[in-house]
C-alpha cells in the first residue's frame, strides 16, 4: 500500500530539494517495512518485552464519580520512558537501521521524544543527537540529564523562541547537511510526508489495543475519545482505530492563558492555514506569514503548528478541537493525582481538564457515557513546574 502524501488539501512536502530524495527513500522503506512480517514481528517483540505493551486500560472510578460518567484511561504513562513517544521511536529506529543509517537526529520539546529516541538508539547501537530549545532545556532539565545518560548528545537551540519549533528548524538544517547517513526521527504526526503517516501508523497501536480492551470489558464502543494535541501523535494514535466508528473524537489544544489571549498553542482553534515544517496545515502566523510564538505551560504542546491529518479531521468535522488553559491543566494535574494516585504529564493533563470540566462547553456528560482518555505520559518531568505555579496561584 502506498503512503499518502496528502490529507485532502493538507500535508505535502515543502522542504528544500536536498531532502526530497531522502523523503522518497523513507517513503519506500516504510511501504516495504509495514508489509514485512519480520519487521513487524521485531517491532511487536520490542513493544511487548521492552516498552511494556499492551498498556492497561484503567477504569478510573473516583474520576468517573467526580464527572458523572465512566472514564477510562489508556495508560501510555506506563510505557517505558514514560510516554507514548517510545512507540514511534522504536519503530523509526528499527527503520533507520534497516535503511543502513547509523546516525539519528531528533527534536524535542518536553524531552519525552528526545528520551524515547535516545533510548531506542542506545538499544539499537545508533548515534543520537537531540535538538532542544534553550527554554525547554531549562524547564525539562530532568529529561536533559536522562538523554545524556543514555548516550545522546543534546544540542541547545538558541534561535527564535528557543522552543520546539526552533528545535525542529535546527534538526531540519542538520538533516539537510547530513542527509545521506542520517535519519531524522520526527516525534509527532507533523513534518513533510511521509512523517505524518509513518508516525500515525506507529502510534496507531494505542487505539488498536484500546478498542479491543473497551469492547472486551464493556461490550460496546466508547462514546467519546479525548486526547491532547501538540503535533498530534498521541491523538492520531488513539483516534485512528476508531475512525470509522460512531465515536466522538475530541482533541484538546493548549489554550495557554486563554484562547483569546494571544498566548496559546491552539492552531486548530485560533490559527490559519499555511506551511510550517514541511506540511500544509493550520498554524499560528501573522498576516505576512511569519510564524508566531506559541505559549503553553506544557513544553510538549508549546508548538505553533499541528499535523496535517488533524487539519482534515477538523475541516471535515470528524473530530472536534477544543482548548484547555494552563491553569485548567495545572488543576487537572493536581486533581488526577489526588483522585487516582496518578501524576499525569502536563500535556496529558489538558485532556483530563476537558473531562473534569464536563466536556464540550462544560455541558456535563450523560451517566451512560463511556469516555476514553489517552493518558499520554507521566508527570515526573513536570513536578517542579507544577510546584512553582501552584505556589504562585496560592494553592497550598
Amino acid at each position, binding site marked *: 500500500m502506498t503512503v499518502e502524501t496528502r490529507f485532502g488539501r493538507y500535508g*505535502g*512536502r*515543502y*522542504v*528544500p*530539494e*536536498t531532502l*526530497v*530524495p*531522502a523523503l*522518497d527513500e523513507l517513503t519506500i522503506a516504510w511501504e516495504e517495512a509495514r508489509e514485512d512480517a519480520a519487521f513487524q514481528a521485531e517491532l511487536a517483540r520490542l513493544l511487548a518485552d521492552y516498552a511494556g505493551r499492551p498498556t492497561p486500560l484503567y477504569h478510573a472510578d473516583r474520576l468517573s464519580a467526580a464527572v458523572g460518567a465512566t472514564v477510562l484511561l489508556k495508560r501510555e504513562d506506563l510505557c517505558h520512558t514514560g510516554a507514548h513517544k517510545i512507540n514511534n521511536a522504536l519503530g523509526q529506529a528499527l527503520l533507520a537501521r534497516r535503511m543502513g543509517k547509523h546516525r539519528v537526529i531528533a527534536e524535542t520539546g518536553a524531552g519525552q521524544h528526545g528520551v524515547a529516541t535516545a533510548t531506542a538508539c542506545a538499544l539499537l547501537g545508533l548515534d543520537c543527537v537531540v535538538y532542544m530549545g534553550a527554554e525547554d532545556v531549562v524547564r525539562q532539565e530532568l529529561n536533559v540529564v536522562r538523554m545524556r545518560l543514555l548516550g545522546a548528545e543534546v544540542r541547545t537551540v538558541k*534561535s*527564535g523562541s528557543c522552543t520546539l*519549533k526552533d528545535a525542529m*528548524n535546527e534538526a*531540519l*538544517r542538520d538533516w*539537510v*547537511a547530513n*542527509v*545521506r547517513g542520517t535519519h531524522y526521527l520526527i516525534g509527532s504526526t507533523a513534518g513533510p510526508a511521509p512523517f505524518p503517516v509513518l508516525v500515525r501508523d506507529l502510534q496507531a497501536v494505542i487505539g488498536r489495543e484500546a478498542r479491543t480492551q473497551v469492547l472486551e470489558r464493556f461490550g460496546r464502543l466508547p462514546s467519546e475519545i479525548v486526547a491532547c494535541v501538540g503535533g498530534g501523535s498521541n491523538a492520531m494514535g488513539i483516534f485512528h482505530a476508531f475512525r470509522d466508528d460512531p465515536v466522538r473524537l475530541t482533541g484538546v489544544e493548549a489554550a495557554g492563558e486563554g484562547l483569546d489571549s494571544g498566548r496559546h498553542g491552539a492552531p486548530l482553534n485560533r490559527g490559519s*492555514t*499555511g*506551511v*510550517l*515544517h*514541511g506540511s500544509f496545515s493550520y498554524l499560528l*502566523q*501573522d*498576516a*505576512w*506569514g*511569519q*510564524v*508566531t510564538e506559541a505559549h503553553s505551560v506544557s513544553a510538549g504542546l508549546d508548538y505553533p503548528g499541528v499535523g496535517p491529518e488533524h487539519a482534515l479531521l477538523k475541516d471535515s468535522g470528524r473530530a472536534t478541537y477544543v482548548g484547555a488553559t494552563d491553569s485548567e491543566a495545572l488543576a487537572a494535574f493536581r486533581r488526577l493525582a489526588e483522585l487516582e494516585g496518578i501524576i499525569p504529564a502536563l500535556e496529558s493533563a489538558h485532556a483530563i481538564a476537558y473531562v473534569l470540566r464536563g466536556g464540550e462547553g462544560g455541558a456535563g456528560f450523560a451517566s451512560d457515557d463511556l469516555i476514553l482518555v489517552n493518558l499520554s505520559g507521566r508527570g515526573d518531568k513536570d513536578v517542579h513546574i507544577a510546584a512553582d505555579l501552584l505556589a504562585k496561584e496560592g494553592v497550598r
Partner: protein
Amino acid sequence: MTPDGMRPGGTTSDGVRPRQQSDGQNVTGGQTSVGARLSTVFDRARAEGRRVLMPYITGGFPSPEDCTRLIASFLDAGADIVELGVPYSDPVADGPVVQASAQRALAQGVTTDDVLRLAAAHRDRAPFVLLAYVNTVLAYGPERFFACCAASGVAGVVVPDLPADEADPLIAVAAQAGVAVILLAAPPSTDARLELIAGKARGFIYCVAVTGVTGMRARSGDELPELVARLRARTTLPLVAGFGIGTPSQAREAGRLCDGVIIGSALIDMVAKSPTVDAACATTAGLVRATRAALGG
C-alpha cells in the same frame, strides 16, 4: 485581527501594487515572457564572455535605508542581478548568518512589501530575484504576490522550500504575471528528479553547490561538477551556483562550470560586522568587485 494598512500589498507606495498596464515586458501575462528579462542578462553575459554575478542580501537588512544603499553599491560594483531575501521567521535552508540577518530585519518590522519596495527603487538598473519561503508567498496570496513582483521589477522568485513536485500551482500563477519560479537542484537530487526540475524550470536553475544550508565554508563546490554535468545533459537553461560560495576564488571555480554565481552569507557577514553603513558599502563593494573580476568583465 490585522490592523488596516498592515495587510500585504494594501497600502504600499510606488511599484509594489500591481499596475494594470505598466511594464510591458513583464506584465503581459503570457508564458513566452516568463524569465525573458533574466535570459537577456544571461545572453548578454555569454556574448561578452563573462559569468552573471548575483549578490544576495536579506531585504531590509541591516535596516531598510541602509539596504537600499547596499543594493546601489552592489550594482555600482558590477552586479548583474540582485537577489533579495524576504526575511522569514523559520528559514530552514539558511545557516546562522542569514538567519540572524532575517531576525534583525523582522525585529525592525520589515515586511514583504518593504522588500518589494527595495526592488522597485532600483528596478531600472537591473532585474531582481526574490528569495521567499513558501509560507510568505501563501500568506500574501500567490496571485497578488506575483503581480506585485512583476510591478516591482522582480523577474524571478526562488522558493527554497518548494520542491518541483509541489511547485505547479505557484508556477502557473507566477507565469500569469510573467514571473519565473526559480527551481533548485541539489547534489542528492536523483537523475529522475533533475529531469522533473529541468522540465518545469524557467529563467535559470539554482544549483545548490553543497549538501547543506547557506553559509561560508572553507571548501565548497566539491559536489558541484557532477551536479552541473547531470543538469547540462537535461537543460539548456542557465545554471547558477549558490550556497557556500564566499570568495572570488570559490566564485571563479563555480564560474568555470556555471553561467552565474550567487554570493550571500559572505556579504551579509561583512555588513553585520561593519561599524557603519559606509564601511559596509565599502567592504561589500570590494568583494563584489573582486568577484566580478574573477567571473570576467
